[in-house]
């Protein structure tokens, strides 16, 4: 049960490592690359806290092995804002609209919403709620999060999502 070598791009930087095949992409990002912004809630694909972009698509990084990401381009929450530390439009909207309280689920929400608004810049309210259904938040009651998505949709329509 040897280790396998993996090469991938994470937040624009090429990374290479050897991993045990059973290591999930989430654990690889957190423990080997020290990118601890990706959070692990349930570790079996229910809560959405570990959502990252793989080749642009929002995926649950706990339901993918790091070896499966060989050759892929991964964007984590650390790669969503601008390199100087400025917030993205989605991050700003979450702050403005009280879309977070404890913040544990927030990285997953921000990554999911970033992908959703890129593909759906004119969402209806039911579409927003459906898109949010794959991420769980135990604090906010979701209303602030829905408001944040509505605010960030304005930025998406102006092409200012990232």
């Amino acid at each position, binding site marked *: 049960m040897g280790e396998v070598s993996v090469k991938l791009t994470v937040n624009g930087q090429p990374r290479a490592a050897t991993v045990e095949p059973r290591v999930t992409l989430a654990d690889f990002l957190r423990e080997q690359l020290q990118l601890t912004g990706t959070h692990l809630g349930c570790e079996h694909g229910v809560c959405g806290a570990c959502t990252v972009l793989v080749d642009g698509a929002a995926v649950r990084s*706990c339901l993918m092995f790091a070896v499966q990401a060989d050759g892929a381009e991964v964007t984590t929450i650390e790669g969503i804002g601008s390199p100087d530390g400025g917030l993205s439009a989605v991050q700003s909207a979450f702050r403005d609209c009280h879309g977070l309280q404890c913040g544990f689920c927030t990285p997953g929400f921000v990554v999911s919403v970033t992908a959703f608004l890129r593909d759906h810049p004119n969402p209806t309210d039911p579409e927003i709620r459906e898109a949010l259904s794959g991420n769980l938040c135990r604090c906010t009651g979701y209303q602030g999060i829905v408001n944040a998505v509505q605010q960030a949709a304005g930025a998406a329509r102006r092409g200012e999502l990232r």
Partner: protein
Amino acid sequence: MKPAPFEYHAPNTVADAANLLAELGDGAKVLSGGQSLVPMLALRLAVFEHLVDIGRIAELSGIERRNGALWIGAGTTQATVEASALVASEVPLLAVATPLIGHFQIRSRGTLGGSIAHADPAAEYPAVALALDATMEVVSPRGRRTIEARDFFAGLWSTSMEPDELLVGVSFPIWGGRSGFAVEEFARRHGDFAIAGAAIGIELDAVDRIRRCTLGLIGLGSTPERARTVEAELAGRPVTDVEPDEVGRLVMAALPSVPSDLHGSAAYRKRVGAAMVARAWTTAAAEARHG
């Protein structure tokens, strides 16, 4: 919550994958999108010595017309199916079922073949495959063969594929004429497995008589189910004479055994199922009549 150790294999061709499965035997499992398998590994409900990742096999992806049917490669993601104009025009039942699978983050990775090979009776694709009489194409070192949907789903999470066989594609018949399709399901939260659901297709003749109909059922048995006796009863009748609630009652009466678990008793599931059948019938009939 960490999977047990396993040996990882990533073949580049179907032939290599089939040889690996034959060689590794019972200790091996196919890994496709992993959206059902990885949770089971994480919870250690399942442990395998070898995982054969088919995600790098290019010939497993694609959507194309073949011999009058729509062929979809087993490795095609649900997100790709959802976005396909060809699926929407040729197999509308598959198109309306897809957005009901999990959440969009799950559909990014989850595959058509993975869902069908996993054979969960509460999942959408197995019920659609059964409802449309889809044909599964499987490959082993012994060769290639096809299995009809009615012979494919053998029981809860089990199929009639041999352990060394790999599902490579599914052919969905294309319905022509004046037809309508609908999937209705009830779940407590969007994306959860349905407590009960129905996948229905209706084709009408020029004077609104039912030329054929298919009544597929989700979460109402140990496999996806189909109410064939009711389909035969309804064929030939004017669609305007058929009460949707009557279809719901007939279908529930025809079911062999309905599961009971902490999400709902068998009696509750039947009531929900009858309502889902009635709703799906209403939508499909309206679409068939008015386009």
